[in-house]
């Protein structure tokens, strides 16, 4: 080796190495704006050289030996988990915000206000029972309340179904991402096997896809020595090397509703997802939307039952002449409180009174009708009640309609009223009912009553100026009820709203907390993997100067060679 070959070689190595190093910096600079880009830095090392004539070894110049990819895999995993948590809370919180917006509580147009207004109208009737328009207001307020409950339920159901639709899209996206990971696995392994070192951009791409997948569901990853990443959900593998098992959105029936569930495509196995957007959507759907529907149904059922219990025992300005129960039994021969009778609001053992009035003379005769449901011997069925009334109550005909409802008809010129029902059978059968229906889906004001507000049962003593029953109905708003664990109907709704508020606040706080965690992790990741332009600029100058120096060195060596050649002339 000599000056020409050795020294020029050094220069050439240096030129090429710094040129490559500058390319790496250039790549970093140009990817500075790319999300999830992992910065690389050139690893330059001095080469072993040929000994000098003096026997010393100064080295063989410089070489770019490797590209370092600045990444912390453990941090990536934590970041993915944090993103999953954040997405889950976000999805839940968004759903709860929608429910809260629907309820619109703390305004004057919310259900609390409507419930309060509804009971207040009864108090107005109590003060002035003679006024038919005031009674009409009770009916219309009741109708508004019922339609509000129905509307809220419909919208909750729409939200529920919308979440199902969202889930289908999200699951499809997850499936596509799992497929992409499998594809990238193959490419990374192939690229790295051909000895080109870490396939940095492919890995970046895969990390990006993994992060997107982690937004949707909680995944665990394990990297194989060959460079492939296997994905697991819980203990079940999703992606193995180049193979994704696939995810399917399957429509399933749970109780009386349709839900979208996640299943593996290959064996239709259940996928247990506890994090990410999918878990958030499922939780929003099942716990919040379905839970709110149930809460609303329960409120409606209590409202219907309690109002009807009181209303059925009161009397209006006009007596009843022909009443058909709002609720049918499944089997008129079955005991009224049995499963076979199928009443939503089953009665208990007790009695009720029917008073039959001659409309001409005003003469009234009162009868006690027993409803024996002691469970000892013959329990009363609808047929029994009908035959008791026909046998004992004068000027009144009882019958079971073709739809298995109780029908009472007074003889011409007679009317009848109910009172003192300790059995709840009148409310159970929907006789002289205020509300019809048994849930928020079908709650409504009895059509006969709506057509004749004077039938509103404000009285307890059959006197037109008696508002005693209206007073009891007004008191329902705040009266503690044994059926509701000593809460009132208003309390029940307030507690639903309160729980929703707590859940919504909790989801939002948890979203904020996990956002902060992921922000912090993101910062840590950026600290390691992110590109800093100033840093790159410094490196740029450094390698530029090194390149310039190497070029100067070659020029110098060239001059030396010129000097040598000049000696030959």
């Amino acid at each position, binding site marked *: 080796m000599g000056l020409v070959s050795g020294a020029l070689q050094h220069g050439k190595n240096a030129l090429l190495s710094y040129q490559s190093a500058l390319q790496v910096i250039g790549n970093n600079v140009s990817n500075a704006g790319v999300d999830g880009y992992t910065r690389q830095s050139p690893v330059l090392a001095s080469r072993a050289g040929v000994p000098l004539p003096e026997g010393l070894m100064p080295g063989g110049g410089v070489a770019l030996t490797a590209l370092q990819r600045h990444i912390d895999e453990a941090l990536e995993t934590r970041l993915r988990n944090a993103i999953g948590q954040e997405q889950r809370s976000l999805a839940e919180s968004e759903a709860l915000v929608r429910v809260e*917006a629907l309820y619109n509580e703390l305004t004057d147009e919310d259900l609390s206000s409507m419930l309060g207004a509804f009971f207040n109208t009864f108090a107005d009737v109590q003060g002035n029972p*003679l006024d038919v328009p005031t009674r009409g207001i009770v009916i219309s307020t009741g109708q508004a309340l019922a339609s509000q409950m129905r509307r809220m339920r419909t919208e909750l159901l729409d939200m529920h179904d919308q979440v199902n639709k969202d889930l289908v899209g999200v699951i499809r996206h997850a499936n596509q991402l799992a497929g992409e990971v499998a594809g990238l696995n193959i490419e990374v392994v192939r690229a790295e096997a051909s000895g080109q070192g870490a396939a940095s951009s492919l890995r970046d791409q895969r990390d990006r896809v993994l992060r997107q997948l982690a937004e949707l569901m909680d995944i665990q990853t394990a990297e194989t020595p060959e460079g492939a990443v296997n994905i697991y959900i819980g203990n079940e593998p999703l992606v193995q090397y180049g193979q994704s098992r696939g995810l399917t959105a399957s429509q399933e029936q749970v109780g009386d509703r349709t839900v979208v569930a996640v299943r593996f495509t290959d064996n239709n196995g259940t996928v247990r997802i506890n994090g990410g957007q999918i878990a958030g959507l499922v939780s929003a759907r099942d716990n919040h939307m379905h839970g709110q529907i149930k809460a609303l149904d329960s409120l409606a059922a209590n409202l219907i039952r309690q109002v009807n219990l009181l209303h059925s025992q009161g009397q209006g300005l006009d007596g009843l002449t022909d009443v058909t129960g709002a609720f049918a039994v499944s089997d008129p021969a079955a005991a009224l409180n049995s499963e076979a009778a199928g009443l939503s609001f089953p009665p208990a053992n007790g009695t009720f009174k029917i008073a039959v009035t001659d409309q001409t003379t005003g003469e009234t005769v009162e009868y006690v009708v027993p409803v024996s449901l002691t469970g000892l011997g013959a329990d009363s069925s609808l047929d029994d009640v009908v035959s008791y009334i026909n046998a004992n109550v004068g000027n009144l005909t009882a019958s079971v309609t073709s739809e298995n409802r109780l029908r009472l008809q007074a003889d011409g010129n007679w009317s009848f009223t109910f009172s003192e029902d300790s059995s709840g059978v009148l409310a159970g059968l929907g006789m002289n009912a205020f509300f019809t229906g048994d849930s928020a889906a079908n709650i409504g004001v009895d059509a006969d009553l709506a057509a004749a507000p004077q039938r509103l049962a404000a009285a307890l003593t059959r006197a037109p100026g*008696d508002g005693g029953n209206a*007073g009891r109905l007004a008191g329902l708003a705040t009266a503690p009820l044994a059926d509701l664990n000593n809460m009132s109907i208003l309390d029940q709704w307030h507690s639903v709203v309160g729980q929703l508020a707590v859940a919504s*606040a909790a989801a939002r706080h948890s979203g904020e907390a996990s956002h902060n965690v992921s*922000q912090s992790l993101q910062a840590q990741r950026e600290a390691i993997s992110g590109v800093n332009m100033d840093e790159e600029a410094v490196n740029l100058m450094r390698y530029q100067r090194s390149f310039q120096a190497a070029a100067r060195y070659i020029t110098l060596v060239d001059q030396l060679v010129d000097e040598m050649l000049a000696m030959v002339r």
Partner: protein
Amino acid sequence: MGIQPIQSMRISTTMQTQMLLEQMRVNTLRMFDDQQQLATGRRLLVPSQDAAGASRALNISAVLSHQQQLQRNTAFADRFAAATEAALTGVRDIFNEAATLASQNVGVPADADQRAAAAAVVEGLISQLVSIANRQHEGIYLFAGQACDKPPFEEGSGGVVYKGDANPLSVNIDDVAPTRISLTGEQVFGAVSGQIKGWSALTPRVDASMRLADLQGAYRQGIRPGQVTIEEVGGAGVFTVDLTGAATLGDVTAAINAAAAAAGATITASLTTNGIRLDVDPAFDLSVSETGNGTTASDLGIERPAPGGALVGKFLLPRLTLSTPLSWLRMGMGIDQAGGLRLRNDNQTVTVDISTAQTVQDVINAINAAGIGAVASINAMNNGLNVQCRVSGSSLSIGEQSGTTATDLGIRSLHSGRKLADLNNGSGVGTVTGADIRIVARTGATVDVDLSGAKTVGDVLAAINAATGAAGVAVTADLTSTGNSIELVDATGGAGWIRVERMNFSPALEDLGLDVEGSPTNLVSRDVSAARPEGAFAVLQDLRRALDASDTAGITAAGERLKRLQQNTGAVQGQAAALGRLVAARQDRLEDAVLTSQSLLSDIQDADYTEVITRFTQAQTVMQATLMTGSRLMQMSLLDFLR
């Protein structure tokens, strides 16, 4: 939401922009939130902003809405009380005018013509009074009680008939108990004061179909259904009977029998005429006690040990109800239904047939349907009947038709227990020192009877029978089997007619109605037992009649009664005024309560403007700083120095 400080060794360019974006997001959000609060004036827009506060706000809103409802009720009660007071002033003016007329026309200067003219004025006053009595407020007849949809007073059939109700209207103004806001015709005009109060208890026997709600219970606390512990001492031991769902007495005995059978005990439950009876095999003892803190066993009158066999429960005091069968009355003795009632209203006599009646309601309906202003009802004690006369200016008496129906029902006007002081519309029977009446038998034998010590009709009959017995004259006194009279029967066999004469100028002869001629052997008195409403209309009508007839004694008497009416009106006006004051005080308290609720609610859900504006200004400054520092940071780059 706040911005978390990020600790990092190395800041990448991406990180810089991300942090800037995050800071801007948080600041914008903060400013948006404050802006919303400023725009709406509300701190809480959705409950989740402050779950605990929202919960309190909901409760306070409910309370507020209820208080506002009470305010509306109170306002109504206030208007109603004002209308009542105005009407009562009119009533008092009429009474004053009538009293003036009465006093003007008693003395000498007035002659028959003047009195006749005054009678016409009184006639007009009666019409005016009827019109005030039928006055309406917001469509409600003021003085009709709960039957306020129709005019309560109607002129006709020889008087003014009250068709109103005895129960006043009530409104909830304080959540304690409904407050009575109306005065009934009875209270203001004494429209139904003439009343025959049932004088014998009709308490029914118990029956398996009897509702527990219709029992007053052994301790008059009602029956509170719960659990009862029964022990068969020496036998099956202790078992519990759940009576929570029991509705009738039959349910109670059936539940005890079923529980006993299930426990293998020999105990059986049955009903006596007035309570529950438990029997056990004589080999064992029996004991009934409460379960826990219950009261059911004592309410049912069976809480005690019963060594050696039967436990006979206490009297359960059933209430008389409209649907009680007649056969249950009087502890199961029933009543005479064949006889019938004889109702007399001045000169009109009506027979009421109750032979086909099944229940108490049927009897009441039959009496009410008689058409002479008689209204029957169950008394407040729930153990007897009352019959009221609703026609002011006429009187009512109830007698037997042929049997003992009226006596059995305890509504016969004249009965041996009737106080003499109540006869003749409360004028009573006057007596003097010494003999009051002399009975002259057919034989001409005379018996003098001193009635001074007699308090009741029975005493009178006993005094007569004792005197005739002592004198050995075969004349007996008794109540007639028909109508409402004292009957003297002469069995002396003489040729004359039996008669009664006055002694010592005693008014007892007329007061007992014995100033009549009968048959030779029988002397039947006039009916002096009738009840007559001592009401405003009756008094004014009497005044009119007395003026018409120029009867100064009658005018004086009517004048005296008018004074009592004026006093009564004063008292009633006092009641109305007291209600007015009560309502006004309640209105004041409600206003305070509403204000308190509103301020509590405002504390929770209204925005504090000073605070929000301060915060908004602060957020604005922070935002400006963020933008300024951010843009400076972004501009700076080493690349600018590369050449």
